Every structure is written in structure tokens, then in C-alpha cells.
């Protein structure tokens, strides 16, 4: 098995500094580092390779133009980029839902979206950030099944509390409680990822 590639905190800061200085080569390095994860996340949400690639393009445009908005003191750059990728993907998903509401395609996608999420295959271990992937999965695995479900619906589908309650046929208060407890556990479980250090 290929040994996992990692990124030290200092490398991450250096990359951020170079991006802020307008170093175009740093953009290419950032792509090599996070594009697989952005593409994976976008594909997980959109279930469409072309749309996912479009999201990757949008994310890099936004990162390159607004890198100054990222406050390095508030955390690493990678989660910031992932949050952009998630928002862009959910925007695309909502646009698609609006326009293709009655399409069978949506039903098909819907069936896929409600499925659980499995860890990546071991051959992907060469992708930078692989250890994080495993850490996050491990943290998710500590949640009860009903908590994990609401987290996935909220994160990957961008559903509101009310929409999740409707989808799961559960009271709104129950959904809120499960989400709150899940977030507490995840925050606790992922606290050591504050800095992505070797």
C-alpha cells in the first residue's frame, strides 16, 4: 500500500502565504493537494462528474480571488476550501432541483443521496489528506445511526431541520436534538484536527 501523503502545518501556511502573494505556481500545488477531495465531495453531493468538475473550477476561482478573506489565525485553509466546495455543490444541487423537479433523474439521484457514506478504497491512500479522511470517518462512526443520518442529510444535501424531519418522519425537535448532539460529539472527536500536522 502506498504510504499516505501528509501536509505539515508549516507547509500549509507557506502555501497560504504564497497564494496571498499571488504566486500562480502555488495554485497548481493547491490543486494537486485538494482537488481530489473537492471533486469527491462535489461528486458525492451532485452525483454528476461534469457538474462536480464545474464546482472544482468555481472553487478554485473563488479561492484564488478571495484568499485574502481567509483568516489564517482562525484555522487551516483546507476546511475553508471544503466549506466553499460544499456550498457551491449545494447551490448547484438546488438549481438542479428547481429546474428538474419533476424529472426522474432527481428521483434517481435522491435514492443515491440517502445512502450512507463508505470510506474510500485503500488504493486512494496516495491522495494527500488520506489520514484525515480516515479520522473523519472514525469520528462519524462514533455517532449513533440516527445521529449520523441527520448529519449526512444536513451536510451533503443541505437540508433544513424541517426538511430532514419531513424526510425521516420525525418530530422537528428530535431532529434538532440529534443534530446538536452529533455536532458536539464531532467537534470533540475532531478537535485534534485543529491543525493538520504531520
Amino acid at each position, binding site marked *: 500500500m502506498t504510504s499516505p501523503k501528509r501536509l505539515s502545518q508549516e507547509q500549509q501556511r507557506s502555501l497560504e502565504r504564497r497564494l496571498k502573494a*499571488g504566486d*500562480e505556481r502555488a*495554485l*497548481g500545488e493547491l*490543486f*494537486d493537494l485538494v*482537488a*481530489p*477531495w473537492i*471533486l*469527491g*465531495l462535489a*461528486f*458525492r*453531493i451532485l452525483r454528476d462528474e461534469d457538474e*462536480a*468538475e464545474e464546482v*472544482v*473550477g468555481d472553487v*478554485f*476561482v473563488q*479561492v*484564488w*480571488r478571495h484568499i485574502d478573506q481567509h483568516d489564517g489565525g482562525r484555522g487551516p485553509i483546507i*476546511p*475553508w476550501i*471544503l*466549506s466553499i*466546495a*460544499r456550498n457551491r455543490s449545494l447551490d448547484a444541487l438546488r438549481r438542479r432541483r428547481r429546474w428538474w423537479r419533476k424529472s426522474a433523474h432527481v428521483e434517481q439521484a435522491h435514492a443515491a443521496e440517502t445512502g450512507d*457514506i*463508505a*470510506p*474510500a*478504497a485503500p488504493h*486512494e491512500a496516495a*491522495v494527500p*489528506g*488520506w489520514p*484525515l*479522511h480516515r*479520522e*473523519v*470517518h472514525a469520528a*462519524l462512526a462514533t455517532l449513533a445511526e440516527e445521529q449520523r443520518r441527520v*448529519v449526512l442529510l444536513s*451536510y*451533503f444535501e443541505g437540508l433544513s431541520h424541517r426538511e430532514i424531519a419531513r424526510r425521516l418522519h420525525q418530530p422537528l425537535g428530535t431532529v434538532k436534538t440529534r443534530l446538536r448532539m452529533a*455536532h458536539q460529539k*464531532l*467537534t470533540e472527536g*475532531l*478537535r485534534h*484536527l*485543529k491543525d493538520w500536522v504531520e
Partner: protein
Amino acid sequence: MTDWLGMLAAPRTPRRELKGRVVARALARRRRWGGPLAAAAVITLILGGGAWWAYRTIGRLTAERDGLVTRVQALEDTVSTFIHGPATRLIQIPVSTGGRVGSVTIFADSARHRWLVRCDGLAPNARDQAYQLWFITDRGMATAALMPMDEDQPMVMGLEMPRADQRVMGAAMSIEPRAGSASPSGPMVFHLLL
């Protein structure tokens, strides 16, 4: 912290050509705005600099104009006082300097003990020389003014007459060293007893 949840999804290896496309798109977006922004910044800088220069220049010229207006008014007052004063005496002295014929006109106001002197047609001085005007008093020659003249143009000046205990009996003008002399030593331009 939940932003890390994005790492839950399995990574997908991008197609080989995606990197070039994405990076080119991101850079093009910044470059597309970079040109016009830089041009706008330069234009703003030029306009701002021009406006600042104009503001400074107008201010300087206004101050200069105000100064000249004040000076002209003062001269007008002085001339008017001399010309129309009941105790003013007008003396016009033809002079010849450097082969040219000119004149020195004196408005002598004995009431205010002031003279207004206008010189016309005097030849410009040599570099190391100057015209020096003298009061002829009952105690001897007293310097009235030193007038280095480098250009061929009229000269007007107001002069205070010597102290009350000296009686002014006439005027004289000589050519002296540029720093002036304590008593006339050079060629005399005119010497006139009033």
C-alpha cells in the same frame, strides 16, 4: 470543525486535463480584472495628481496675485500721496549713462519727509557696479539707496529722508561698487542742489 466533514467523501482523481483548465480559468479571472483595475488605478492616480497639482498651483498663484494687488494698492497710495500732497515738490533731472539719455524724477514730500524716486532710461550696470543715490545734507553726503540695475527697465522706490536734525539740500547719484560705498567715490551721474 464540521467543515472537516467534507473529507468524508471518497477522493476522486481528477482527469488529467482538469488541472490545466481549472488553473487557467482561475488565473484568467484575476488577470481579466487585473488589467482594467490597474488602468483605473493609473488613471485615478494621474487625475488625482493633476487635481492636486492644479489645486496647489491655483493656491500659489492666488496668494501671489493677492500679494501683488496689495503691493500695487500701496504703491498707488504712495504715488497719490506724493503727487497730490500740498508739500510735494517735483524735480526732474536729465541724466546720461553709457551713452544713453534718461531721467531721474523725484517727488519730494517735505511734510512726511519722504521721497518717491523714479529712474528711467538708465543704462544697466556692469556686474560689479550699482547706482547709489545720495542725499546732500548740511552734514555731508548720506546714502539714500543702492540700486543695482541689471536690466533695462524703469525703477521706482520710496525713501525715508534723513533724520530731522539733518537738512536735505540736494541729491546726487554715482556709480559705486555693487556692495555700495560710505561716501561717493565713483563717477557722478548727477549732482543737484535743490
